[in-house]
């Protein structure tokens, strides 16, 4: 199986679909000869031409809307947001148009559209280039939301996202672009809505996604040396969400932790917790919920401030350890 970076895996999915489906094209800011701000589309314009790898003006609302319109007449557009924060400029088209068209028109039309781009902090890009806004889109019926943590998932999930007849928000993490992994060179996509148990354990279930999968796994390894046995679930997609996997795991471990980089308030973690409370897993809970999230602030610039904002391996491990000592030892 070939090894490639997360960034190359994303490119590979785009390239594969463009080769095999003439309806697929990509547009965005500086994605042509520049190759995209993060190099995701490097080489694609040379291979597919300027029509299908389309440089656009700096006009997020316009290009997302153009993606929707092209989808309505039979194309399968991928729209790149140079930074996922810029999708805020396109919110009418994302929320009032793309998400609603299928439902609002009584199922007569569909919008097979992928909006993808880099999310997350850790690069010193400050408040307007570092956010994790997935909770906004997770809140909107009609959108699917995907956030892969590994190169093989990035490729497989993006293949499925492009083939999906619904609008899909696909958030990549900037700090993962250079990570390397084995990526199957297959046609098969990974179904949206299937989570994965990355680490089996018995003391608690940690639900996470994107960059925090890596940090949570590292924290869990550290705590394993101290005798704690933690289960880590990588959701991979937030809508649809593999809630059955979560519920089954919590029933086994009796303890629930959610960990995400996005700010805690109104975050996806709260929804995960609520769904567990509503489920049969409630009766198995032996501890109150623990949320480990980004602070309820904008993302700051200075390195020590930015580090304080986002959950680090240290913060995750320490928070977990304190909580475990309190909740498990006192049983």
């Amino acid at each position, binding site marked *: 199986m070939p090894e490639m970076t997360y960034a190359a895996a994303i490119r590979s999915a785009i390239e594969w679909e463009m080769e095999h489906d003439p309806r697929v094209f990509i547009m965005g800011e500086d994605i042509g000869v520049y190759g995209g701000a993060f190099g995701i589309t490097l080489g694609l314009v040379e291979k597919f031409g300027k029509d299908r790898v389309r440089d656009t003006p700096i*006009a997020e609302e316009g290009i997302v*809307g153009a993606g929707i319109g092209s989808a*309505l*007449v039979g194309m399968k557009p991928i729209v790149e947001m140079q930074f996922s924060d810029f999708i805020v400029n396109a919110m009418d088209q994302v929320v009032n148009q793309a998400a609603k068209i299928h*439902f609002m028109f009584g199922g007569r039309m569909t919008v097979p559209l992928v909006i993808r781009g880099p999310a997350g902090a850790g690069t010193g890009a400050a408040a307007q280039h570092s956010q994790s806004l997935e909770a906004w889109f997770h809140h909107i019926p009609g959108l*699917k939301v995907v956030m892969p943590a590994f190169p093989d998932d990035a490729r497989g999930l993006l293949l499925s996202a492009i083939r999906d*007849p619904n609008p899909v928000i696909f958030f990549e993490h900037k700090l993962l672009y250079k990570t390397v992994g084995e990526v199957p060179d297959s046609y098969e996509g990974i179904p949206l809505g299937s989570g994965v148990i990355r680490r089996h354990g018995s003391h608690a279930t940690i639900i996470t996604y994107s960059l925090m999968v890596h940090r949570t796994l590292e924290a869990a390894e550290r705590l394993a040396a101290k005798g704690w046995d933690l289960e880590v679930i990588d959701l991979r997609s937030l809508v649809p969400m593999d809630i059955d996997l979560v519920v089954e795991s919590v029933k086994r471990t009796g303890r629930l932790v959610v960990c995400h980089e996005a700010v805690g308030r109104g975050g996806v973690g709260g929804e995960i917790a609520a769904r567990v409370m509503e489920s049969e897993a409630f009766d198995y809970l032996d501890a109150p919920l623990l949320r480990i999230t980004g602070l309820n602030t904008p993302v700051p610039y200075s390195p020590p401030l930015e580090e304080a904002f986002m959950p680090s391996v240290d913060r995750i491990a320490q928070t977990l350890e304190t909580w475990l000592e309190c909740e498990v030892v006192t049983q």
Partner: protein
Amino acid sequence: MNRATEQAISKDATLEEAIRWFRTMLTIRRFDETIDELFASGKVHGTTHLYIGEEAVATGIIGALDSGDVITSTHRGHGHNIALGGDVRAMMAELLGRETGYCRGYGGSMHIADQSLGNLGANGIVGGGLPIAVGAALGFVMQKQPKVVVAFSGDGALNEGAFHEAANLAAIWRLPVVFVVENNLYGMSGSVKEMFAIGHLAERASGYGIPATMVDGNDVFSVWEAGSQAVQVARSGGGPTLIEAMTYRYKGHSKSDANRYRSREEIRDWRKRDPITHLEQHLSSHGVDHTMLNEIRDEVVQVIADALKYAEESPWPNPEILEDSVYTREDKTGA
């Protein structure tokens, strides 16, 4: 009206077309009058935006389109769908919230679409359809289909950022889009005199490198002629055009409107320039028999009455499937 249009109507085929437009405009008016009555009597809920007074714009522009061309519509969109040949029974049922409605009762007045006729959808967001229209045109160009997209909007939409981005995209990519601005002088209560610092909205197009033209939006022939030219330019690869159609809505912006921002005299004066009366006079002067026109009028009244009956007798939609209607498993797009 200029000489070119006079000549055009002297041809039988075009006279036939004009009679068809008469029927279309009457249908739009009778439909929206009926909706107005239904709202006034509390028989339908929500809100609605009536096209009464503006019928010549949709009729003339859509008369210039070929089968396969598409439009994006607006919150004031009933007229657009009827001009495309939309099913008034399904429209009426939609407004009454019934299962047999265009959107199975999921959309209502502001969300009627009929992809089979080329209506990519009305839109509750001012300007929201403009980037979508541009995208549809982009799709057609990429598919090498010689189709044209008409993006309807009101005057108010020209102050939305979406218009700016859509107009620029259409211009730089020379897309087959015709921006049709139905300038009815008010965005809700906001007068174009107060909300624009330019005399004519068409002037704005030059900032994008888009040619523009102004027409009397109450004269279906002028609208049709301007539309035909713009459509021909678009279809032959000449890029977008903006048409500013001067018109007027007789009714308020929506159900809540008490008309405090405009005078009775103004409404009265515009009613004297009624687009249907104008067309009727023109047809008469070209020898079309009054009996025939009255027959059409009677037929239209009956068609709308039947549509209302159909809608009232239609079943309500089933709430149990609501949550299963958000996502699709099947890709239904494609022209």
